[in-house]
C-alpha cells in the first residue's frame, strides 16, 4: 500500500517520506524474521541516510514531479509480461523452509557448525561477512568509496551561470512553494 502511494504521489517530499516509512516497515519485517543485522542495516541506511540524502537533493531540485501526459502502453505491456514471468518462475521455487532446499544443504550448515569453533565469534553474520566472505566485503567497501568519489567528481566543480541565450527550463507544472532559486536549474542527477 505504501508502495502504491509512492508511485501515485506527485509531491517528491512526500514520496521521500513514504520511502522512509517503507524502509522502516521492511526493517520491522526483517526483525520479525530474526534477521537482526539486515534489519539494522535497513533501518539505518534505508530509513535514515537515504532519506536524508533524498531531502538534500530535493533542496536542490524542484519539489513537484512533472506530469507526464497520457499512458505508456508499451511500458505497461513490458511490466505485465515481466511480472507474469516472475510469477511463473516462483512456481519452480523449492518449498519454503524445506530441509532439502539449496539454501539449507550448500555451505550454510558448514558456516553454522564451524563458525564458532573456527573463530569464536558469536555473531555468525559478522563471521561470514568479515572472514569467510572477506573479499566480497572488501569489494563492498571499495564500492562505497567509489560512490563517494563519483559524487565528489560530479559536485566538486563549482556551478556556473548559464550561458546567455539559453533560456532556463521552466517547470511545466505549477511552481507552488518553489523559490525562484530552485526553479532555474537543477543539477544533472537526482
Amino acid at each position: 500500500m505504501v508502495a502504491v502511494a509512492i508511485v501515485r504521489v506527485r509531491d517528491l517530499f512526500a514520496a521521500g517520506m513514504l520511502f522512509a516509512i517503507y524502509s522502516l516497515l521492511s526493517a520491522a519485517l526483517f526483525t520479525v524474521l530474526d534477521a537482526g543485522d539486515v534489519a539494522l542495516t535497513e533501518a539505518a541506511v534505508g530509513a535514515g541516510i537515504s532519506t536524508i540524502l533524498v531531502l538534500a537533493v530535493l533542496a536542490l531540485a524542484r519539489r513537484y514531479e512533472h506530469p507526464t501526459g497520457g499512458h505508456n502502453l508499451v511500458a505497461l505491456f513490458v511490466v505485465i509480461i515481466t511480472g507474469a514471468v516472475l510469477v511463473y518462475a516462483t512456481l519452480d521455487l523449492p518449498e519454503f523452509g524445506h530441509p532439502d532446499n539449496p539454501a539449507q544443504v550448500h555451505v550454510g550448515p558448514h558456516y553454522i557448525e564451524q563458525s564458532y569453533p573456527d573463530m569464536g565469534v558469536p555473531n555468525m553474520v559478522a563471521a561470514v561477512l568479515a572472514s569467510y566472505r572477506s573479499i566480497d566485503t572488501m569489494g563492498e567497501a571499495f564500492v562505497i568509496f567509489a560512490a563517494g568519489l563519483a559524487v565528489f567528481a560530479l559536485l566538486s566543480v563549482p556551478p556556473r551561470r548559464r550561458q546567455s541565450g539559453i533560456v532556463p527550463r521552466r517547470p511545466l507544472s505549477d511552481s507552488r512553494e518553489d523559490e525562484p532559486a530552485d526553479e532555474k536549474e537543477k543539477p544533472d542527477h537526482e
Partner: protein
Amino acid sequence: MSDNGILRVVARFLIPLIMLFGLYIQFHGEYSPGGGFQAGVVFAAGWILFALIYGLDNALKVISQRAMYILAAAGVLLYAFVGLLGVAMGGRFLDFYPLLPSPHAAQQLGIITVEFGVGVTVATVVMLIYTMFARRKSEWEAVLREDSDP
C-alpha cells in the same frame, strides 16, 4: 532551523547517544547484530544531525572535508592492508590465521580491524556526500544572486 530551541536541546541530548550507539554497534558487532556498515552510517547520521541543527560550517570544523577524503581512503586501505598482512605473514589474501598464534584471537583481531576499516570508510563517505549536496545548495544560491543583480 538552528533558531529552534527545542531542536537544539533535543539534538544536544541525542547526538552523543547516536554516536555512542554507532560505536557500540561497531565494536560489539561480533556479539550482537551490527558491523562496520551499520556503525558507519549511524555515526555519520549523528554528524549530519549536528550539521542540520548547528550549520554545515560548524560541522566541518569538527571534521574537515580534507580529513573526510583521507579517512575514506584510509579505511579501505586498512582493509586491504590487513589482507596483505596475512599474505606477508605466510597465509593467503585476507587470511587472518597467521596474524596471531591463537586462531580465535587472530580471527577476532582480523574481523575487528576490517570492520573498523569499513566503518571509517562508510561514515566518512556518507558525510562527504552530504557535505557535497549541502554545499551545492549555497553555491547555487550565490551564483543566482550574482545573476539577479548584474
